[in-house]
């Protein structure tokens, strides 16, 4: 990384005062990694908490209902938090999850800290995902990786894009020598504009 800040994909900076509601959760990647069920628990907690902003199915018109919102938010967050638990190798192993609800969509910002080398390979994966046709890429990767048992292929991100209609943005910021803050932003629409 040569630039202090690199932004890829659809990434929005916070807009003061426009959110319906917003919260931030701080976790440690080591804790998540040591007991893996903490990842799922964190995703489920936030999803349930935010599901109360959505109406029951009977009342949900042109908008995600409560049960679907909870299941989808949990799925999306779980994937993003899993990545921070797996790929944090620098700094104080801090993970920050910000959930910002706007009029027609929710923005999830998930950040963690990595070394330069990991940041570079992450950038490559991000470029690959954003530059190609995500459906084609997903199938191609699956067919290709059939014999492989290693992760880090970006299939999780592709699932979010293809199946959950999520738009992804990536922001990498140099914070010091061999220290990069990675923020993945997922935009999930819940209502037609």
């Amino acid at each position, binding site marked *: 990384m040569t630039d202090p800040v690199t932004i890829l994909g659809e990434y929005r900076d916070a807009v003061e005062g426009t959110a319906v509601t917003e919260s931030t959760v701080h976790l440690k990647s080591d804790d998540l990694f040591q007991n893996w*069920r903490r990842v799922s628990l964190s995703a489920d907690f936030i999803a349930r908490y935010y599901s109360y902003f959505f109406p029951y199915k009977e009342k949900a018109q042109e908008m995600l209902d409560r049960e679907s919102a909870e*299941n989808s938010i*949990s799925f999306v967050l779980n994937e993003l938090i899993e990545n921070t638990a797996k790929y944090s190798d620098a700094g104080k192993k801090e993970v920050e999850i910000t959930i910002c609800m706007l009029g027609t969509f929710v923005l999830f910002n998930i950040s963690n800290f990595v070394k330069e080398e990991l940041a570079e390979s992450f950038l490559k994966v991000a470029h690959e995902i954003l530059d190609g046709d995500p459906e084609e890429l*997903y199938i191609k990767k699956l067919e290709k990786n*059939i014999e492989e*048992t290693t992760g880090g292929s970006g299939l999780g991100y592709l699932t979010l894009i293809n199946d959950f209609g999520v738009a992804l943005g990536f922001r990498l910021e140099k914070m010091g020598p061999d220290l990069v803050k990675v923020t993945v932003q997922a935009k999930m629409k819940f209502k037609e504009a």
Partner: protein
Amino acid sequence: MELKGEDFIVALNESKNAVEFFGTIRLRDSSDYKSISDLLEDAHGKAAGTLILDFRNLQFLNSAGINTISKFVITARKSEKIALRVLGNEQISWQQKSLKNLQKLWAQVQIEIH
């Protein structure tokens, strides 16, 4: 044969020719999924005719798990030994969104989401 995790059960029900999934499966990576893919391989070996993959009681499966199932579908397609039928629950949104993709890997997979 049955696999029990802290939050899930995967059971091979030989009388129904079915692999049944219960709970939440969000394991770390494909090496953690090995026991589940072994069970699927085992079911594939024993099954005759149609093998059912029953997800109706599975609240969550993470992308690593979806990959495990997808790879199994590709393997089954290549061997052409049996047919596959996938059962899903329309009340569970990830199933509605992701299970249909299995048909992109093998057009003959029968998918029923109710």
